[in-house]
């Protein structure tokens, strides 16, 4: 079923190839370098730190990690793009940079509107209850109080938090990581984003939620957005994305249709 869907989309992309597509994200020869504090071997004692400050030497504890090395691609309106690669290949870094959360060392990233990044780590505000988080998250995204009221029930229903009892009125620190990720996805997906970046968020939910969120991603794409998905679950990439970019050691290995890229990717892993 998924295969026919992607074939359809690919054919549509080819027949429309003559029309100018509207770009949403332009990544132009981007390099990203992390500066990591507290690394390195040196003695971590207070006296050595003090003598470093006095001698004005740069701390040896700062090390640079070149996480992305010259990646370029352009994504267009209505696309869902999967990012694959082994652990530490630079996928998540790439997403954070598109979201504007990491500065680029070289090159530039141009986006349409404000991309929104969805990750699995951490809830919005742990001490607050789920319903407060829904309301605050929506208000923070710029909805009016009336809009929040109208959407509230949909968001809670979509997240499925209340399926097993009244969990929405509990503080989020009481949630399992899967529940927190689900609620967070539901909040972010309640609004149409020009560019939605998803980092492994779909892998955490149960199967039922995964299917629901895949449907929602399709809807978001229809509403003229672009979706990026980072995942180690090859099936969720196959089901949601028709285009896939394979990154390895911070470099772009392959950029093409999901079927082709996946075939090569799986071949290299055997």
């Amino acid at each position, binding site marked *: 079923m998924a295969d026919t869907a992607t074939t359809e989309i690919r054919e549509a992309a080819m027949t429309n190839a003559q029309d100018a597509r509207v770009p949403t994200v332009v990544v132009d020869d981007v390099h990203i370098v992390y500066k990591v504090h507290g690394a390195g071997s040196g003695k971590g004692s207070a006296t050595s730190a003090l003598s470093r400050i006095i001698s004005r030497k740069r701390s040896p504890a700062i090390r640079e990690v070149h996480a992305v090395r010259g990646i370029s*691609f*352009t994504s267009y309106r209505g696309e869902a793009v999967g990012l694959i690669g082994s652990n530490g290949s630079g996928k998540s870094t790439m997403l954070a*940079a598109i979201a504007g*959360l990491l*500065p680029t060392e070289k090159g530039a990233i141009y986006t349409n509107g404000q991309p929104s990044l969805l990750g699995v780590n951490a809830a919005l505000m742990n*001490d607050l209850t789920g319903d407060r988080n829904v309301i605050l998250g929506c208000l923070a*995204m710029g909805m*009016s109080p009336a809009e929040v009221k109208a959407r509230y029930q949909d968001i809670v229903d979509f997240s499925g938090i209340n399926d097993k009892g009244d969990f929405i009125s509990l503080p989020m620190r009481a949630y399992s990581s899967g529940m927190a990720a689900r609620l967070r996805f539901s909040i972010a997906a309640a609004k149409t984003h020009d560019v939605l970046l998803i980092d492994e968020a779909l892998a955490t939910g149960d199967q039922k939620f995964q299917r629901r969120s895949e449907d929602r991603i399709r809807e978001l794409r229809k509403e003229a957005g672009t979706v990026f998905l980072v995942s180690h679950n090859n099936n969720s990439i196959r089901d949601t994305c028709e285009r896939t970019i394979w990154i390895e050691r911070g470099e772009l290995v392959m950029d093409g249709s999901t079927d082709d890229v996946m075939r090569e990717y799986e071949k290299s892993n055997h």
Partner: protein
Amino acid sequence: MSTVSDSVNFSAPSGVDAGLTPKQLAAKYGLAVSGKRPGFVKYVKELWARRHFIVAFATARLVAQYTTAKLGQVWQVLTPLLNCAVFYLVFGVMMKNRDGITDYIGWLCIGVFVFQFSQSAVLSGTRAISDNLGLIRALHFPRAALPIAFTIIQLQQLLISMVVLVGIVLFFQPPTMTWMLVVPALLLQSAFNTGLALVMARIGAKTSDMAQLMPFLLRTWMYTSGVMYSVKGAVDSFPPFFQVLFRMNPASVFMDLIRYALMPNEYNKNALPDHIWIIATAWAVFAGVAGFIFFWKAEEEYGRG
């Protein structure tokens, strides 16, 4: 099949756009550099659009503060009361440091609460960004909303303390017309504190060492501001320059204003320093505007790295 799809380059612009460089393509469709700081006017507008978020965030945080405590919201009143009790025990009873102030407990409590308003605005401002990285990295909104919300939390807490305070003051004297002056004084102090919180938020976001240093700076500020003694009496013998310096101290200025407003008997009008309302307004405007601009200048850097 693979040969067909290989010929489709997913990245290359198609149709009339064919051949454009990425940069030209971005310019043509008006794409902006990701994470760029918005202009000042646009930023203010965005912030205004988030006013409901700021208020809701502040209220939610205030309520959540005591959710793990058994007594819950009672702590909102208990904390200021216990604070007063400790200071009264040490400075009022043990050290007999009353400076000839007859209604010492009321005088002391005003000092403690008013100073704490500024102190906690600074402290929570310092952590406003680093404690909310989850929120910052997940959703996009003007980051100034956070330090402003934290100042509102402190204001709400002060208003609760004020209720306790009015009770204490009423015990010693009947209400007077000067009580109305509390409103403009608190408004000015709120503007001043917001500016301070914005400055500290930017510094604290970059240098986490500040969180370690702040308690010492704040304690110094407290002991020089005359929370438990009268600054006026203490600096009389100082050189004129230092006298002016102490008189300009915003914490002392706001304390004086509220002490005068609530306890005009302690302060006959002559005892209030000259031009104090002008000094207070100047502090509020200067800190508010400068703090906001200072914070906005680094807007794109919060939550990075």
